[in-house]
């Protein structure tokens, strides 16, 4: 299902810093900031979409590299 692409914080304002995205990420990409999620290691992202599909708040989106 995964496409070529990497995670993007599409709607930062909707993040409730619950950490679910970090829980479901198979590698180390995301980190919790004080008020919202942050991408710490984009290079690690394999575009698996686990975070996008699990985030209860529609914050994350995997997009084409060049987007």
């Amino acid at each position: 299902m995964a496409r070529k692409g990497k995670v993007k914080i599409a709607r930062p304002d909707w993040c409730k810093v619950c950490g679910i995205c970090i829980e479901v990420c198979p590698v180390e990409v995301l980190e919790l900031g004080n008020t919202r999620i942050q991408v710490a290691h984009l290079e690690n992202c394999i575009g698996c979409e686990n975070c996008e599909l699990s985030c209860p708040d529609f914050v994350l989106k995997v997009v084409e590299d060049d987007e």
Partner: protein
Amino acid sequence: MDVNIDKYLRQDKMPHIWCPGCGHGTVLGSFVRAFDQSGLDQEKTVVISGIGCSGRASGYLNFDTLHVTHGRALTFATGVKMANPELNVIVMTGDGDGAAIGGNHLIHSSRRNIDITVVLFNNNIYGMTGGQFSPMTPTGDTATTSPYGNIDQNFDLCELAKSSGATFVGRGASYQPRKMIKLIKEGLLHKGFAFIETLTQCPVNYGKRNMIGGARDMLKWQDEHLVPDKKYEKMDPEEREGLISTGVLYQVSKEEYTDKYQQVINNVMAGESNE
């Protein structure tokens, strides 16, 4: 994912009211993705929900939506579907809404096999009212109204729906959004009464009180306890202890209620014109 879910969400109502880490948002997300994949017509779809945190789901969805009284969503849905069988009718309900106060409607809607898809958000608790036990709170668990441990037995809702006559029964979980999307999509496309139980975490009023922990811990708990249905079927009873099966648990094809009623209309009207 290669879909635009934005058109199914009422963007101006977001962010939603659910607590940080609440699984209801993941179920909502799975629903819109499933709807997109189903190919059903958004303008011919009505979403009806009851009262509870889960009941708020309809307000975030860009369809004809109806937020009704506690437990009664299926009764309104039955009226909508009967009055206009061309509409896709979806009910979103909670474990209290759908299994306690609305339990009788679940039984009878299943029995009729009316073409309605139910997504029941099971968080094992009354979330909205602050953590009282529900018919889905496991025996022994703590809730605000079972401070000494819950002595009630909880339901197996999928078994209940199946034995009542539902022709599609499945269970999904917020830890498995991909499977849940597929399950909901199949339920939406099933002709007849489709009952989908989704396991969702309420960290605020259930997880923390029952030593499971916050949202992340609750998902870990799901990971340790969920078994695909195919595998579950092959396990012996001792092995199954404490585990929960997910997937399409039951599906048969049977004549649907509004079709049957249309047949009645056709017959009666033909009889009359022959007179």
